[in-house]
């Protein structure tokens, strides 16, 4: 018994999309204009901006576009990182997905496999393509044909935000981008800073997986191996165990990390950090924004460059803009994206979100390269970003939430041993990945 996609709505939508694209590809530009000049093309743009400055930057760019392009009107739709993927699945299935979709690269692989996203490979304007370096494009390239399913624009690297007074008092060497701390040195410093009831470091590990996996590349821990047939399996060997063990030791052996912060989300330890309860926070670069704006008067802080294992490599995850496969106006959508992500605009977005732009032009913008608020350190860390191996793993999301999140949470909480954790990550993980 064969049933073709039974969801009536999806079928209707697919039909209408087929008609729509059939009509407009014949005469792009000219066709749409002559049909109804009074009727502008309407695009929905789902944005996940959440920091105040970032929302302002996004909305300002949309307004600017709408003013200059009366024939292509973009509506800003506010989304949230918390539930965007659930929302998108529902919208893709039921119809009515936004034309331009803001998301991040780990989510794209699944959506691309299911055919929800438009392959932009042959549609990208040369200027946009050359402005963004190939490693960034690699984070959004999936499948045997090497389809490009989004335009990467903001990248996050892991740095260390530290309390300057405590660092100075402990007289530790302040690392530079050229001469960063090694993990050993970091452990030593953390121990030194642990005194008078204060801890050296806080590891907020409510969502431990991406963070752990990105840092694991410091010791070349890839966590996955992908065979020739595109199937991936989990591997947790000595390289993968390095970072796991080191973080664990800080919490349970050296006792230089505050165990209370383990269950916290990334931004939750900030109040304790301001009070001096812990001296260092290994976090994403974007958290600088909150520190810069919320820290109490007289609180001095510095951004320290990423740590070094056998290398300083970190997994790169980028925020992306994609076009829905069902969009009736993909070409217009791409035009909007090209405008939205050109060099100067990316600099504005990066500044608004306190992240690192992929655009090479934007990266030279003086507003995000100065020493103020650690921008110089943050921008310098771009050179350490490599494609995170898990981006290419089909089923990574399920492995992450069903297996890796509970296992890593339990491991860091000291409930299971490293060998148990490794065993479960591999065995239960491979069972999950088998189905993809």
């Amino acid at each position: 018994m064969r049933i073709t996609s039974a969801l009536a709505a999806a079928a209707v939508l697919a039909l209408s999309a087929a008609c729509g694209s059939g009509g407009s590809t014949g005469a792009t530009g000219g066709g749409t204009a002559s049909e109804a000049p009074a009727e502008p093309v309407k695009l929905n743009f789902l944005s996940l901006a959440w920091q105040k400055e970032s929302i302002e930057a996004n909305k300002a760019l949309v307004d600017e576009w709408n003013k200059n392009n009366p024939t292509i009107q973009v509506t800003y739709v506010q989304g949230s990182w918390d539930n965007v993927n659930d929302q998108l699945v529902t919208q893709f299935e039921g119809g009515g997905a936004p034309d331009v979709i803001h998301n991040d690269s780990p989510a794209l692989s699944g959506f691309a496999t299911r055919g929800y996203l438009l392959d932009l490979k042959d549609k990208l304007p040369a200027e946009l393509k050359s402005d963004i370096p190939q490693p960034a494009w690699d984070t959004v390239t999936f499948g045997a044909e090497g389809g490009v399913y989004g335009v990467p624009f903001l990248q996050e690297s892991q740095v260390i935000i530290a309390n300057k007074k405590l660092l100075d008092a402990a007289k530790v060497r302040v690392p530079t981008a050229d001469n960063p701390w090694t993990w050993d040195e970091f452990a030593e410093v953390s121990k030194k800073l642990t005194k008078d009831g204060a801890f050296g470091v806080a590891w907020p590990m409510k969502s431990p997986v991406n963070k752990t996996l990105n840092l694991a590349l410091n010791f070349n821990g890839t966590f996955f191996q992908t065979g020739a047939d595109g199937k991936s399996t989990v591997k947790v060997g000595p390289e993968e165990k390095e970072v796991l063990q080191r973080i664990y030791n800080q919490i349970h052996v050296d006792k230089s990390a505050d165990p209370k912060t383990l269950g916290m989300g990334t931004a939750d330890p900030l109040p304790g950090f301001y009070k001096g309860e812990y001296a260092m926070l290994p976090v994403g670069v974007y958290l600088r924004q909150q520190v810069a704006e919320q820290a109490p008067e007289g609180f001095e802080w510095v951004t320290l460059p990423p740590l070094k294992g056998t290398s300083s490599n970190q997994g790169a995850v980028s925020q992306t803009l994609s076009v829905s496969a069902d969009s009736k106006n993909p070409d217009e959508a791409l035009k909007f994206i090209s405008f939205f992500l050109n060099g100067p605009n990316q600099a504005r977005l990066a500044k608004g979100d306190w992240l690192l732009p992929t655009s090479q032009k934007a990266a030279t913008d003086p507003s995000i390269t100065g020493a103020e608020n650690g921008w110089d350190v943050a921008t310098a860390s771009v050179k350490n970003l490599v494609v995170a191996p898990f981006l290419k793993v089909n089923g990574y999301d399920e492995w992450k939430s069903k297996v890796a999140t509970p296992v890593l949470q339990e491991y860091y909480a000291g409930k299971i041993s490293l060998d148990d954790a490794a065993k479960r990550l591999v065995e239960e993980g491979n069972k999950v990945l088998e189905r993809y």
Partner: protein
Amino acid sequence: MTATATRPVRTASRGPSPASRQRRELLVLMLPALVPVVLFSVGPLLYGIALAFTDARAGRNVEYGFNGLDNFTRLMGDGAFWQAMVTGLIWAVSVTVLTFLFGLGLALLLNENLRFRGFARVLAVVPWAMPPVVIGLMWRMVYHADAGILNGILGTDIDWLADFTFVLPAIILMGVWSGMPQTTVVLLAGLQNVPAELYEAGKIDGAGSWQRFRNITLPQLKPVIVAITSLDFVWNFNQFSLIWVLTQGGPGGRTTLPMVFAYQEAFRYGRFGSAAAFGVVIMIVVLAILGVYLWRQMREANA
């Protein structure tokens, strides 16, 4: 039918009997009520059951087909599935039992001739008026690690919703709180239906208040108790929104109730067939547990 058979003469002479005509009229009258039931309940239910035997999954223009019992066998071998069922049972049983005990206590209290009784009754119903999402958000503030009321009162420093040990008790407490008004109101209504003469007779015979409660109140309330606990159990076993707002099934799957699991299976991993199969399993489990429970209660009532 029976009417026509037993009274053939009258049928022949006067057309359809009043009884069968009445039945037809009844059907016509019920139609407006039946159509939405078939359209919105029976239809989706059958569609869901059919889906459980296919490999339906999320995707654009996906073709899917019959795959027999694959979904079910795979579920049986999935550790996360069993964990969700166990968590679901622990949650549903504890919430139902605790809600009943507290609800009964509150109902007995509100049935007494207290001052401000009317006001107190209104207060007891307040949680009922709150949507689950609001309840969830409210309790998130109660349990907040830094700014929460609970840590403030107890002087502790526990992140209730992130702690592997405390998270289940914490959400059970919230479940009890949000389920109490309904149970209390139903039990209170039941209490008011117990004839006062029975208590008077008990008093004359010298029964103390505990004996009166055991031998008069409880037996008289029994039908109400059976009804409300069964309803509560089904309701709790299928709870989704409260948990979703509060923990999303975390930490580490400790609060993944059956419905949260089904939701993730369908909308996160896009396996509609498997999620539908899970729905069927839940339906069977709930029906089985309820069946045994109701059957025992009926047998006791008849004995």
